[in-house]
């Protein structure tokens, strides 16, 4: 590919007030890089990012009519945008600027060896210069955006963000897979610190949503497909009907519930109770009308006899599509399900999870009973499914300490005779939540503490359930607690059902939660432009943390789509249509479907959808004709950087001579690929004319080091001149032959 090399490059090297200059001899570095090809001027400054230094850089660029800029200072993650702006202000294309990281990746990491650090700084800057020399002037890609947001998941996170987005002027589609809104919060009972019930929060949000025209809620709705790109996604949604319509009063509900003969375990109550085929998650659940579970229903018609035309068992599944500029994922979490036998779960009859306990407490009336037995002593075992030393879940789920202690407060408040035993691995009621720990201690709850490696044991002895714990608070005394109910304080894990994430191609972290772009600086964005994550699907969060993240995601999404236009980074794949012969390999490989097959100038070639391409570069290694390259990361640029890194720092004059030599020989005629082959490649082809050969044989014949031969041979293979025979010679080397 023909490129004009930049010849008037300005290099600005930062002292960073000693952070760099204490370990790197900045002036010496400046002297050395001055001689690099293409460099017109080198300046050193105390703080390049300071306002005055920025103004000075701008003056220098204008004064000297610079066509490229290298800033050598801290990490580009910190100041790339700062200096892009500087370039813009000076009238220099912002993509003709390359950042050299000589602080985090040089001075700070090699502060014990200043000579080496200086040497390395030269190499880093040299590589940056080499890159900027070949850089292209680019413009950001501008695309149109629909001011419509699709919010997936109508728990409190999704509902809150729908309201926020609508307040900011976006049209919102709110998509919930369940037939009732509220997600996990509706199951949670009384919440810290106000003791307001989760379902009240749900009710408040639902009522606000119902009042608005700019929010459309779909329940029983599952995302099936995603097309399009940021600014204009097309979502395909499958909607399962309720089979019941119109509002139903309590009388009606009581009658149909009584009439329905079928029963199944109630997921909403974590299997503690049964529900009918026609059901509501809980009496006050929204939307108001009940729903029929068609997987269970046998269409006996018992409910239809009671209703006055409110039930239609023949309603059909619908498939709809709509367009949205941005997507917010608020899919929440699953509670950790302990394995059978983990602290007696499912093997000891009175062991339940925290989530079950909260439902039990919420539903209990008058007496607290489990499986018909009255409960007096409750033992809570903490960190079940979180902070696992050997398991997959290394994370702390953050909310469970508070949730368990608050349950202990509530249970004591409701049933004063109950005694609470907390068997913990250290209490993490951080921030304002510490008050509930104080309250619990004050009401006489007993705390025992174990450490990793000495997990408590739960066993049944006769009628009694015993927990043995090596208690760190009493100098590792073995203490036995007998309990009527053992509550496993189970944490949060990612939802089992990952179909939405798969359709949206959201990156997933090693902890299985969705990955944000940057944990600290960009916590609600994903690398998929226009797709945001909020709430517990990103990492464990309590209600307050969820609200903060969902509002952040709403604001980010709205700021993206409300102007009707979006600017995207032009660092993406480009296809050289002269070289492309459309083999479809790029299309096959691309995770984002960014390639399409088009006709151009009478031939079939690949075309990149600029809004879909993420610039990851996965397509470049598979292109057999080397037609694809990533802007800023072309083979030429990368090789230039490698050269700059490896070459000895002191051989500057030698290097200049080479540059001049290679510049002379540049012939760039892509479609005459064969003619443009390097001498070495031609010789390899000649050598192979007499039959298939292995690399060492060719090397011996050409009297050339075999790694050189291999480099050229691999290129020849990539460009389709040579192929593997899949045979080996007597020394077990692979044979290569000409591809006719």
């Amino acid at each position, binding site marked *: 590919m023909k490129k004009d090399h930049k010849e008037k490059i300005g290099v600005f090297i930062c002292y960073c007030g000693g952070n760099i200059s204490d370990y790197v001899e900045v002036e010496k570095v400046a002297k050395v890089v001055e001689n690099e090809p293409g460099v017109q001027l080198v300046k050193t400054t105390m703080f390049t990012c300071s306002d005055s230094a920025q103004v000075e850089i701008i003056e220098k660029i204008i004064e000297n009519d610079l066509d490229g800029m290298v800033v050598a200072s801290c990490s580009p*993650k910190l100041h790339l945008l700062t200096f892009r702006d500087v370039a813009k202000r000076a009238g220099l294309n912002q993509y003709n600027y390359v950042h050299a990281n000589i602080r985090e990746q040089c001075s700070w*990491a090699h502060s014990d060896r200043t000579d080496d650090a200086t040497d390395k700084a030269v190499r880093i800057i040299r590589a940056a210069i080499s890159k900027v020399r070949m850089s292209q002037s680019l413009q950001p890609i501008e695309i149109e955006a629909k001011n419509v947001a699709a919010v997936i998941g109508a728990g409190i996170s999704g509902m809150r963000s729908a309201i926020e987005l609508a307040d900011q002027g976006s049209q919102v589609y709110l998509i919930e897979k369940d037939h009732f809104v509220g997600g996990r919060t509706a199951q949670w009972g009384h919440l810290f610190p106000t003791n307001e019930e989760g379902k009240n929060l749900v009710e408040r949000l639902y009522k606000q949503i119902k009042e608005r025209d700019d929010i459309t809620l779909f329940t029983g709705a599952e995302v099936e497909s995603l097309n399009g790109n940021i600014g204009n996604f097309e979502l395909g949604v499958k909607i399962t009907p309720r089979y019941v319509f119109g509002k139903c009063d309590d009388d009606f509900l009581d009658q149909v519930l009584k009439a329905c003969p079928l029963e199944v375990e109630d997921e909403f109550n974590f299997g503690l109770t049964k529900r009918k085929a026609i059901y509501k998650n809980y009496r006050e659940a929204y939307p108001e009308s009940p729903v029929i579970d068609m997987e269970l229903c046998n269409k006996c018609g018992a409910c239809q006899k009671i209703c006055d035309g409110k039930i239609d068992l023949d309603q059909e599944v619908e498939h709809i599509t709509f367009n949205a500029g941005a997507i917010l994922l608020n899919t929440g979490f699953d509670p950790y399900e302990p394995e059978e036998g983990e602290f007696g779960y499912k093997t000891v009859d009175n062991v339940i999870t925290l989530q079950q306990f909260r439902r039990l407490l919420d539903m209990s009336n008058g007496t607290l009973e489990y499986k018909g037995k009255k409960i007096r002593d409750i033992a809570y075992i903490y960190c079940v499914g979180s902070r696992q030393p050997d398991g997959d879940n290394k994370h702390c789920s953050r909310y469970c300490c508070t949730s368990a202690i608050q349950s202990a407060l509530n249970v004591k408040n409701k049933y004063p005779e109950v005694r609470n035993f907390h068997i913990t691995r250290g209490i993490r009621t951080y921030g304002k939540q510490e008050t509930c720990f104080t309250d619990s201690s004050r009401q006489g709850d007993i705390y025992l503490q174990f450490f990793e490696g000495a997990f408590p044991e739960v066993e049944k002895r006769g009628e009694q359930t015993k927990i043995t714990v090596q208690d760190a608070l009493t100098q590792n005394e073995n203490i036995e607690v007998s309990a009527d109910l053992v509550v496993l304080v189970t944490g949060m894990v990612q939802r089992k059902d990952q179909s939405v994430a798969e359709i949206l191609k959201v990156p997933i972290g090693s902890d299985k939660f969705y990955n944000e772009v940057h944990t600290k600086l960009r916590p609600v964005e994903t690398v998929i432009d226009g797709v945001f994550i909020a709430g517990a699907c990103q990492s464990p969060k309590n209600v307050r943390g969820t609200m903060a993240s969902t509002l952040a995601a709403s604001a980010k999404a709205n700021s993206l789509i409300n102007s009707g236009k979006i600017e995207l980074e032009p660092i993406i794949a480009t296809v050289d249509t002269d*070289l492309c012969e459309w083999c479809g390999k790029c299309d096959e490989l691309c995770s984002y479907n960014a390639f399409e097959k088009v006709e151009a100038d009478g031939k079939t070639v690949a075309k990149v959808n600029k809004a879909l391409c993420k610039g990851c570069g996965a397509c470049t290694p598979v292109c057999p004709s080397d037609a694809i390259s*990533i802007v800023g990361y072309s083979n030429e640029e990368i*090789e230039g*950087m490698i050269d700059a890194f*490896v070459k000895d720092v002191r051989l500057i004059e030698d290097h200049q001579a080479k540059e001049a030599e290679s510049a002379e020989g540049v012939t760039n005629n892509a479609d005459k690929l064969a003619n443009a082959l390097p001498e070495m490649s031609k010789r390899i082809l000649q050598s192979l004319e007499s039959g298939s050969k292995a690399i060492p044989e060719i090397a011996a014949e050409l009297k050339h080091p075999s790694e050189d031969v291999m480099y050229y041979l691999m290129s020849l293979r990539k460009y389709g001149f040579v192929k593997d025979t899949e045979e080996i010679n007597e020394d077990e080397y692979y044979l290569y032959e000409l591809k006719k």
Partner: protein
Amino acid sequence: MEPNIIAFCCHYCAFTAADLAGTMRQQYPANIHIVRLPCTGKVDINMLLRAFVDEADGVMVAGCEVGSCHFLEGNIRAKKRVEYAKRKLEEVGINPEKLEMFHIAASEGPLFAQTARDFTDKIRRMIQQESQIEQGSEGQKKKEQIAEPVDNRKEENDRSTGAM
């Protein structure tokens, strides 16, 4: 002399980890030269071999942890390509262990530094061993197969020409 090592690092994980290593003042040898790539999925065999042709002593490819690539499976593809390139290196008598793939999450600054230190040590040892063998015995079979170095290095310039 310290070995020259090229480290191809992905933007989201390993490069960030390298930044963090510096911020935490974790020390590692200065001969690790980081080439930032958008994703290790961009790594191809030519790039890896190019480094060896340029007489780099070792090449490390550092991507996200398995299962947490920001571009879904770039790091897995890179791993496969590194394995392939290792076989090719072996073919020409370069110790394939001079090329290695690592998985370093963005938060693992110390791991980056440790990896850099360990890999440098390993390369240093390999170079020592090789020079001992070269001096000591009559030379390995593989060494023989690398034809005697020829002084027509000028041809290297060809590499920057044409479509290569």
